[in-house]
């Protein structure tokens, strides 16, 4: 009996897609079907990804770049083909600009640490400024706080408007001649906001600052073209884009990556080692010390194959339509306040909200009893929560396998939650 009609255009064939995800067929306590609305936290994996990893372990497994035997060759080739596929997925000019890390967080720390050790142009020193925003994930805050502290640099940031947008009104003073690096989230994991990167990058270019983009929520959701973007370094993470855990990516422009010192030291990242000193291998090896996440890279390649076969533009449209529908239906819920843009304009598919008189932990607990998985807490974005005067929120987030019916189940669940806690 809803006033808002479920969308019928711009959606993916979720019946077909859901059949690829074994977990979506699982039943929870009380034989309830799983309504998984926590994809911004981590996505589910299609069997194509799981199978690619299993097949590698069962038939090819071997270390990479070190062995001349048949398994070693095959494993190395699979690993490097994965790099090429991921480069193509984000339109990187060169596959050697794709560095495999263990997650986004490591990718961002890689940048902050190598800047702290850099000499020359990119070196960050006393009095230099680093610019981030108040809506960053902790993984794009803490590394910069540590860098600022270690090098006696100054951390500055853009605030958030009441609508959950970046407040760029002071952009020309926030990003200034002392700014060495600007690191910004592309799509906020809490507010859903898509940030105006073009404006920020243009200003950063004017002052010659390096631009780092946290694309952890962007790469899974929309077509990304790093060549067109104009940033210097872009970080994202495998597990949020139907890929496995244990792998992330740092893309960087060759000139920048070449100019930075190495991050971790060890096997595979060297050119030569003597007890007296060492020299470094060229990209990408320079930044990949030790045995890399081999099978994880192969799993991530299967993930980008999967996403590409569907089409990132169609995935973006699906998310957009679903988010618009969810936002509209959420209006019918009394006492519910959305944190972040309330219209599906420049907005990703994560919707955080407050419910009057019921703590997010309790909201998510009741939803869970109905089989609906949402996230409650600070979503690793405490400053953005503090900005809105709250400590935590409940978040529903969607992905290519989410259906309008699941949004409906979520809305019903909120009604039930209010009744349970007698605020209805």
């Amino acid at each position, binding site marked *: 009996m809803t006033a808002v009609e479920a969308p019928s255009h711009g959606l993916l064939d979720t019946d077909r897609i859901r059949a690829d995800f074994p977990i979506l067929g699982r039943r929870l*306590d009380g034989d309830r079907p799983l309504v998984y609305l926590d994809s911004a936290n981590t996505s589910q994996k299609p069997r194509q990804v799981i199978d690619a990893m299993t097949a590698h372990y069962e038939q090819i497994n071997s270390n990479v770049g070190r062995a001349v035997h048949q398994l070693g060759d095959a494993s190395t080739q699979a690993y490097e083909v994965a790099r090429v596929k991921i480069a193509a997925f984000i339109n990187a000019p060169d596959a050697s600009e794709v560095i495999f890390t263990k997650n986004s967080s490591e990718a961002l720390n890689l940048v902050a640490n190598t800047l702290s050790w850099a000499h020359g142009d990119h070196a960050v020193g006393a009095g230099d400024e680093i610019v981030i925003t108040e809506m960053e994930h902790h993984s794009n805050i803490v590394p910069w706080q540590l860098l600022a502290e270690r090098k006696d640099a100054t951390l500055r940031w853009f605030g958030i408007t009441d609508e959950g947008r970046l407040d760029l009104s002071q952009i020309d003073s926030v990003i200034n001649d002392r700014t060495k690096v600007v690191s910004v989230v592309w799509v906020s994991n809490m507010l859903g906001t898509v940030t105006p990167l073009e404006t920020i990058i243009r200003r950063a270019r004017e002052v010659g600052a390096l631009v780092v983009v946290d694309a952890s929520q962007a790469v899974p959701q929309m077509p990304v073209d790093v060549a067109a973007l104009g940033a210097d370094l872009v970080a994202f993470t495998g597990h949020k884009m139907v890929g496995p855990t244990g792998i992330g990516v740092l893309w960087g422009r060759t000139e920048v990556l070449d100019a930075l010192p190495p991050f971790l030291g060890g096997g595979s990242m060297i050119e030569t080692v003597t007890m007296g000193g060492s020299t470094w291998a060229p990209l990408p090896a320079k930044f990949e010390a030790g045995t890399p996440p081999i099978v994880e890279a192969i799993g991530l390649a299967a993930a980008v194959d999967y996403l590409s076969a569907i089409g990132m533009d169609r995935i973006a449209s699906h998310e957009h339509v679903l988010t618009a529908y969810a936002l509209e239906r959420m209006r019918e819920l009394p006492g519910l306040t959305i944190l972040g843009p309330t219209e599906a304009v420049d907005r990703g598919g994560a919707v955080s909200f407050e419910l009057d008189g019921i*703590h997010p*932990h*309790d909201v998510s*607990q*009741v939803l869970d009893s109905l089989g609906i998985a949402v996230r*409650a*807490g600070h979503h690793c974005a405490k400053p953005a929560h503090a900005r809105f005067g709250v400590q*935590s929120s409940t978040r529903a987030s969607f992905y290519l396998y989410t259906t309008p019916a699941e949004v409906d189940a979520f809305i019903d669940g909120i009604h039930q939650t209010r009744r349970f806690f007698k605020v209805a």
Partner: protein
Amino acid sequence: MDLQSLYQEIILDHYKSPHHAGLRDPFEVEVHHVNPTCGDEVTLRVHVVDDVVVDISYDAEGCSISQASTSVLTDLLIGKKVDDALEIHSTFVELMQSRGKVEPDEDILEDGIAFAGVAKFPGRVKCALLGWMAWKDATARVVVDVEGSVT
């Protein structure tokens, strides 16, 4: 999962009207504890005189479980000897970590037995313990302070 066993009426009552809430003077030690997972926080003060828990006051932000359990904590421990309070503390912690396998003792835990159901929800055990851990921390510091001032 049985929602009723988690959200006992007693818990919801304490949540709606927490006992002994607010920060009061006098006190010897104030601590601030956080649940890093969800961000729930409690600022808690203890006032101990002659080995007796004279007051526990607090300012808490958190879910029904963490709020209610802090409220129950104050009911149970205020007025007790520190040693007895620590005993009750152990009993409560043990109950919470039992995964539902310990039968709660109403004589000792009073309203605290309502949390037996929480022990079956591993994700919520931290909520129930937030205030209790803060109290133990604060009390340990009082004892150190007092002993420190004696020697």
